[in-house]
């Protein structure tokens, strides 16, 4: 398990997602990477009906094919507090026991799937994000397995990304790592820079959730699916759509 960074890839005008993915795969192969299977990350969100005074709570349930026996879930209590949980995949069945309190928002079921490549100790995944069978954009996952802290290998990952994507990647750490809050000993929320922490599989899942939320928000802003936007929207921390790239803002609209 190593450090993973997600990078949305901007869709140029007039090109289809499949075309871009094909192009990137060819680049990776000519670089010397090998094709190593498929991957899938999916996310389903359950929303509780708001009751007298308490805001609506959202439970995001995610799966990552890299950890096939686990279910990752993150609860957002509506007041900015998040609790993350890793459980056996049977947790999905338990969620179904609570359907009268937590209802699944089927129309926001979102996933990223595609091919998986290995290059040295790097694992690169070219994911196409779809929500309700609608193509939303390209999300690239890059993992450097031998390293456990981002600050040590960010420059390497950045060079690798720029190398095969052919785009400029900002020198700063990805926003996910710099904008995390933790609970301090006094029970208050505190800004905490994560780039020196030991990386955990949950961090990958949280990054996916952050990006998925951005893709969903786009629909809700541009499309007219206003309801429930506030409850889902609290997760992303309120950044603009493209977390890493200014150019990626607005890619949802072109798909």
């Amino acid at each position: 398990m190593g450090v993973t960074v997600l990078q949305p890839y901007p869709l140029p005008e007039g090109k289809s997602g499949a075309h871009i993915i094909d192009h990137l795969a060819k680049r990776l192969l000519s670089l010397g990477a090998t094709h190593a299977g498929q991957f899938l990350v999916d996310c389903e969100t359950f929303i509780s009906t708001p009751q007298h005074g308490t805001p609506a709570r959202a439970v995001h349930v995610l799966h990552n094919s890299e950890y096939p026996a686990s279910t990752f879930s993150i609860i957002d209590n509506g007041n900015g507090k998040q609790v993350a949980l890793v459980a056996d995949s049977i947790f999905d069945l338990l969620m179904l026991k609570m359907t009268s309190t937590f209802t699944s928002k089927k129309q926001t079921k979102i996933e990223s799937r595609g091919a998986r490549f290995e290059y040295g100790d790097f694992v690169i995944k070219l994911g196409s994000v779809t929500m309700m069978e609608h193509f939303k954009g390209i999300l690239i996952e890059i993992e450097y397995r031998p390293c456990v802290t981002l600050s040590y290998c960010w420059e390497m990952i950045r060079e690798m990304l720029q190398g095969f994507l052919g785009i400029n990647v900002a020198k700063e750490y990805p926003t996910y790592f710099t904008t995390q809050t933790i609970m301090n000993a006094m029970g208050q929320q505190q800004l905490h820079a994560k780039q020196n922490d030991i990386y955990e599989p949950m961090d990958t899942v949280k990054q996916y959730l952050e990006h998925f939320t951005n893709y969903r928000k786009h629909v809700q802003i541009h499309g007219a699916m206003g309801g429930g936007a506030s409850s889902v929207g609290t997760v992303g921390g309120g950044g603009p759509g493209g977390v890493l790239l200014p150019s990626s803002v607005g890619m949802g609209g072109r798909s």
Partner: protein
Amino acid sequence: MAISSARESLSHALTNRFLPNLEYLLQGSILDSAVEHLMHRLKGLCDNVDTSPEPFHDLEVCMSLRQSQSNQPLLLRVRRALGRDAPFQMRYLGQPEVDIRRPTLVRSCMDCACTNGILDFLSEMGFRLEFEYIAKGYMFRKGRMKITVSKLIKIVPGKQQDMANEPISQSYIVELSVVAPTGQENVGEEMRVFAEQLKPLVQLEKIDYKRLGNLP
């Protein structure tokens, strides 16, 4: 080859009946003074002779969630091993069925290992603490049957680690259980035969909770 989603593989496990989701249970109790005899008997009967008896010391917390459409709250039990680093175990238990034709009590059951954030997670979901207790005792294994002999210890709220917590009674609870996939009816018979062998030390029976009234 397309990769299947976690939900797909889970429903595959359910339909093909290799997901263990039914618990067959027999219960009984034995006085402190006689528990030594039972332990000797079990050591002789069970599989894990070289390592037995395996001790355990768990804190069980039962959390409940009010469901809007039913008057029965949803109960989830979370178990944590005290003095050992192990994942938390969350367990869902369905309504027990006491069928005259079956030799054991049968209830649906789901076990799920979790990270230590589970209690916080459940309270954020709206679960409230129902009750908690400490179970301390020994576990034996015979084939796929699990036999536990344990002492239940009452907890003064907020003092889970305190050694001053009192046992609930002067006896040990003995449980014989198997968690198996649906459709394996011979399990009950297997358990009945084993329970016969523990007589007259302990009388293992299917206990009908409904008859016990409103005990927690």
